[in-house]
């Protein structure tokens, strides 16, 4: 393990005189595998205009190309929720989705029987880069509580092409490993035109049945996927839903869907504002 500065160029700004606060992330890395094992956030100041070195994974466009594919762009969407239901949210509620636009390696080749070689060559590189971006935004693997993944296949592709990328070990195992999760990963998939809004479901990274962590985040790439492209998405959340209060399977009242009394006999909403016992203040 060693500390590796994710962002360089913190000094030498005195000439410009304009200092702005920035958040600098220092990653704890396994130097051999390049795995990000933790991140700590350090508030500091950086001079406006100071050059920052791009994270090394962002050179991956070349690596992906060397693997026989094309990475066109990456979009990261981060939502930080401060209020929900009109009340201030406790703690950090940050949901992040990272989307990579790659060329569909099978479009124009007719029916390709064996999809594994192209996926094995490309998916781990893309997944590792997306995980890096997600952990940067979330503040490290220890901050990640829930995760998910998604794919949108451009109009000339097969649904199976998207499945090959996200439902084989080459993508999900990298996300699970980087985020220190153990659960199967929630997912969505679609075929669509450029600009499709992608809703990425997420659940708890080690306890998928934890109801408080069922949530989703949306990401959209306005000009992707083109007909011969795929959008691969990985997503994380740092918390449960803000103000989660629907209990869990261990606390549910008995309910029998085969019992006619289960239908239409509820007494509706008897709640009052005093029922809102979850944390937070107006």
């Amino acid at each position: 393990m060693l500390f590796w500065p994710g962002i360089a160029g913190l000094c030498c700004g005195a000439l410009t005189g304009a200092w702005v606060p920035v958040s600098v992330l220092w990653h704890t890395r396994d130097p051999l595998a390049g795995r990000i094992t933790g991140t700590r956030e350090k508030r500091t100041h950086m001079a406006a205009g100071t050059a920052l070195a791009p994270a090394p994974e962002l050179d991956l466009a070349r690596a992906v190309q060397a693997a026989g594919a094309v990475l066109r762009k990456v979009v990261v969407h981060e939502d930080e929720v401060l209020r929900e239901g009109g009340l201030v949210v406790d703690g950090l509620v940050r949901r992040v989705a990272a989307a990579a636009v790659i060329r569909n390696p099978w479009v124009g080749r007719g029916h390709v029987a064996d999809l594994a070689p192209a996926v094995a060559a490309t998916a781990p590189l893309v997944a590792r880069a997306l995980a890096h971006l997600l952990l940067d935004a979330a503040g490290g693997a220890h901050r990640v509580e829930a995760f998910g993944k998604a794919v949108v296949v451009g109009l000339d592709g097969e649904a199976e092409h998207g499945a090959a990328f996200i439902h084989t070990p080459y993508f999900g195992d990298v996300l699970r490993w980087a985020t220190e999760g153990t659960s199967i990963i929630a997912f969505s998939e679609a075929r669509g035109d450029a600009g499709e809004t992608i809703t990425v479901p997420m659940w708890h990274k080690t306890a998928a049945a934890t109801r408080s962590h069922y949530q989703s985040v949306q990401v959209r790439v306005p000009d992707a996927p083109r007909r011969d492209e795929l959008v691969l998405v990985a997503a994380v959340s740092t918390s449960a839903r803000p103000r989660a209060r629907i209990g869990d399977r261990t606390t549910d009242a008995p309910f029998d869907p085969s019992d006619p009394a289960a239908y239409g006999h509820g007494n509706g909403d008897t709640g009052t504002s005093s029922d809102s016992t979850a944390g937070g203040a107006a």
Partner: protein
Amino acid sequence: MNVRKISTITELVFTEGGRAVPAPVRTAVVLAVIENPWAGQGFVQDLAPGIDSVASDLGALLAPRVVEALGAPVEAYGKAAIVGLDGEVEHGSALIHTLKFGDHFRKAASATTLLPAVEKRAPAGATFDIPLKHITDATIRSHHQSIEVRLGDAPRPDEIIIGLAAAAQGRPQARLAPLSSEQ
């Protein structure tokens, strides 16, 4: 100022027109979803008190975030105000067309020019394009660009999305002759 959420969108482009770009092309947007300060008040003639209580805080909130999200020196910038359906476009314009708002970004980016802007009234989930121009010379053609964004659940009718956008360079593969070549 009541901020419901802050969304950050960063984009890195590696190829354009089928060709690799020399370095990843970076663009960042930070959007704050706030309660419309004039919601439920009917027609308010004098917007100055609302501007004074909100605009500077908004600029101070967004400017460092967008510079940080970009992670590189800012070369082009722009701003946005998307007003929910119950508000006036004038409400959004009030919050972004004031030095109290824009100077935070100008200072953080060492910029001097006017910030190009998009202002519109729209339902939640509307897409909008934020125009960007060069931070010190708005005639530099290579830096005329825009970025399209969308928030699924904002703005609600009584909310406003206020945003800043920054780019670390001009368009990918920019190759237009400069304005001076036509003068």
